[in-house]
């Protein structure tokens, strides 16, 4: 009789077993910081039985005195093995006294199989998720981390518009509708309702356009491609963890992109007198790329490659990052309509002397 009534109630509370299964796979981290604006605590997910911990690449790790509290209350030292700023992640190793680095620790910790997790299909908006973190340093030693419930709000890049986010990671992120990204939550686990690891909860991040806080996680299969030595190089979380656990990870040296130097378009704008003069075309140089593309005087350039261009300065900043030969898709306001124009930048004409 007791079971008959208790059964369905328990079954419709599926978060309990997941929480119990996930919580031991997290460690609470305590490191540098504590002064204004820098949080000195965080959390990480265990990714090997031997005590490898994946966490956010935060300033907190910048100490020789990094401490990890395991779920069972054990207090251990930890060291940073490798960090990848492009992914905003770092791999730590828990140190067991008397066991030199490189030797098995014998810890046999509950852990996530990251390679396995990365193979699963990514989550999509509306998927129910749980977030695990140590927000506001509420837990120490064997006290459990905090569990929150929410859904995936979106799967998108956080760098849709330059300058909106002050953030190194340029890949796709999970945005979450729960308020997960509090102080101390960075490095926490985002899981599905079966306890599968979906991502690593990020830091506190503000959207400077809307002045609102954003809750996000870096997916377990996060991948970013950058240029190194003139060649594209792809970094990903599973590869990072694999190499770092093997002690072979070499951070990528991303090249500065300021070498583009711009291209010639031949648009003459209205005088840029205000901080946000809208990019109205006043005139076009004869035979210039802009003239050939079919731009006209009085066109208002509104979007470049889908991104809003609110001012002459914003347009010029965009051009500085482009190269001659590059084609930009301009959406221009002309009369009551919006026209799409393909503008191929050219080499700047030689100055007449």
């Amino acid at each position: 009789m007791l079971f008959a009534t208790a059964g369905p109630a328990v079954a419709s509370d599926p978060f309990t077993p997941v929480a119990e299964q996930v919580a031991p796979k997290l460690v609470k981290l305590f490191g540098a910081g504590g002064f204004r604006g820098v949080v000195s605590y965080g959390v990480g997910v265990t990714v090997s039985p031997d005590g490898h911990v994946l966490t956010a690449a935060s300033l907190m790790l910048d100490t020789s005195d990094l401490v990890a509290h395991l779920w069972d209350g054990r207090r251990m030292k930890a060291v940073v093995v490798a960090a990848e700023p492009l992914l905003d992640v770092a791999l730590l190793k828990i140190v067991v006294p008397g066991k030199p680095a490189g030797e098995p620790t014998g810890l046999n910790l509950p852990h996530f199989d990251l390679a396995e997790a990365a193979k699963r299909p990514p989550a999509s908006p509306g998927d129910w998720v749980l977030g695990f973190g140590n927000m506001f340093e509420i837990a120490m030693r064997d006290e459990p981390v905090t569990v929150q419930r929410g859904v995936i709000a979106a799967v998108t890049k956080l760098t849709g518009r330059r300058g909106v986010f002050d953030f190194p990671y340029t890949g796709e992120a999970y945005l979450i509708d729960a308020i997960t990204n509090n102080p101390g939550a960075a490095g926490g686990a985002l899981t599905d309702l079966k306890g599968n690891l979906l991502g690593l909860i990020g830091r506190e991040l503000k959207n400077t356009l809307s002045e609102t806080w954003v809750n996000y996680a870096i997916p377990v299969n996060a991948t970013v491609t950058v240029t190194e030595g003139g060649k594209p190089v792809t970094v990903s979380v599973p590869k990072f963890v694999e190499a770092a656990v093997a002690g072979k990870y070499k951070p990528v040296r991303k090249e500065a992109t300021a070498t583009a130097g711009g291209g010639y378009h031949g648009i003459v704008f209205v005088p840029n007198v205000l901080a946000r003069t809208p990019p109205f075309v006043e005139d076009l140089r004869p035979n210039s790329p802009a003239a050939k593309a079919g731009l006209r005087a009085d066109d208002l350039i509104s979007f470049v490659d889908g991104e809003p261009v609110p001012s002459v300065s914003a347009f010029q900043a965009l051009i500085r990052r482009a190269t001659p030969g590059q084609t930009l898709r301009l959406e221009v306001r002309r009369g009551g309509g919006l026209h799409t124009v393909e503008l191929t930048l050219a080499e700047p004409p030689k100055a007449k002397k």
Partner: protein
Amino acid sequence: MPRLLFIAVLCVPLPSAHGQEPNEATERAIKSAVTSVAPMVVRIETAGGRGVAGDAGVRRGSGPTTGLVVSPDGYVVTSSFNFADNPSDIFVTVPGRPRLVAKRVASDTARMLTLLKVEASGLTVPAAVPKAEIKVGQWAAALGRTLDPDTARPPSVSVGIVGALGRVWGRAVQTDAKVSPVNYGGPLVAVDGRVFGVLVPLSPDATGDTAGVEWYDSGIGFAVPLEDVFAALPRLKTGKDLHPGRLGFAPEKPDAEYNVPVTVGTVAPDGPLAKAGAKTGDVLTAIDGHPVAHLSQLHHLLGPRYEGDTVSVTVRRDGKEQTFDKLTLAGDSPAARPRFLGVLPLRDDPEPGVQVRAVVPDSPAAKAGVKAGDRILLIGPATTTPDAPKAKAGPPLTRDRLAAIIARVPAGQSVRLTVKRKDGGKTESMTVALADPPEKPIADAPLPSSRKGAKPPAAPAEKKPKPETGLLRRTNPTLGREYWVYVPDNYDPKVSQGLLVWLHPAGRGGRDANDVVKAWKEYCAERHLILAGPVSKSPEGWLASEAEEALTDIRRLADEYQIDPRRVVAHGLGTGGPMAYYLGFAARDFVRGVAVGGAPLTTQPRDPDLTRPLAFFLAAGKKDPRLANIEEGKRKLAEKGFPVFYREMPAAGPSELDAATVEALKVWLDTLDAI
């Protein structure tokens, strides 16, 4: 034990008929509802507008926003939030179609919605959940189009439940789904794919383009029922803005919302109640037959109504009830304007009555023969019959009481003053026809301004023995916020001080304290003024959302120093200006004056509140590119009925005041408590 429980869970057969765990079924149902509404959820981008000419100022949320298709021929409804700056260019992307230019058709200022139109046809329109079917506890998903620029992909989702109905005076459904600039303008979707409403920032106790934004992601979010949106659509399509419907009166006790009957304080001239013949002192007892026991019930009954709607109002007068039928509600028509007598009262005066420090030339008081040095002892209604009873003696008349009474005298009515003449002269009575506050400032304010050596009437018993003076740089211990205060060295706790809150321009927070003090020091000592300088969090300028926090410490100065509540002024030049305007409207209980140079008004002004007066001193350089915008703001404030003094400076740049304007500002500051 936990392990055991875990095993038990796995063993219990899943209860769902389809072998599906119930949460999973819910998750799927919500996702499918989202998918079915997604094609009607549009992305909106804006450019240009009032903000173009301004610089940082009070930064507001900008960037993309969300909208919902409401008719197949291209009408889209969205939150007014992103239209506060009146953007010149609006672009709408309907999923699966190229980006289109949109026009703003009209706004609903009661529900903070804006209707847009794009040239399109054959759009799919969502089905509304009828209000009668909306129940607390139903699943609700809030959708937005701002996070992902690609409209081919799913909209953003936050899942919660319907938390309450009839919120914000009957205008909105509440939800605990996360509502923020991420999804303002988007739909709140039911699990069956119909739409509860349109997500908006709303606040029960504030109006304005951005009111309620401070609650973003708090678990308290609002949506205007789509049924109401559809009902308002035909009127909005005509291009006329819809305003909240008003009866045209101010209650006697505007802050007592739940405990006292609604007694009419002042009746707005030409307002619906005035036209019907309602009077000060009438008690409102019912609207359309629904009983009204207190103010909040009235708000609930009137909240959903628009300008032009008709209601019947029952009032009780002298114990008898009478009903005014078919009153047409007014919109944003001018509220009752403050009345003006034309005297400058002497401050810190413990004796009963109000001693006249100066009489404003050509004012009603001057015309009636009131002279400097006279003491106003009584005020009462003027009567036409000579043998009418004399003005009744209430509690002793003070400066603040006289000001409150005068400000609320209905337009066109006169008052009778009992005045004791200067230097032991005789006591006389006179009838004074009150006027509008003057458009020109008072030319001069003679000293002394305070009763010498008198004990201030409202002095707290315990004051610090020796309050700190000079330039004080302080940090709030809990919030970590820096601010500075300047108290003149001759500070005397027996003399009430004005308070000038300096809102620094972007990037100058704290660093301009010495310059500000240097400019004001002499005046502070002579005219008893304290300066306070809160500091913005970001070097890029002020945020509306930090207003209350920034004021926390400034408000506390009143515990430490003798601050005259009638002379607290928010002052900003250039990029500090918008914050000064903002504080004027947001901190209505605290700020009595707003002094701004070189900054246009960027919010919709609220109505004047006769119990909490607010005056404006505006200046603009003739060469300022924002001159036209600043003048537009001045016009709007004056139309609302705020006392506005405006100066155009022939040679001044955008964020400075010329010498003559500074002098005028100084006199204005010392005459803010003119009655």
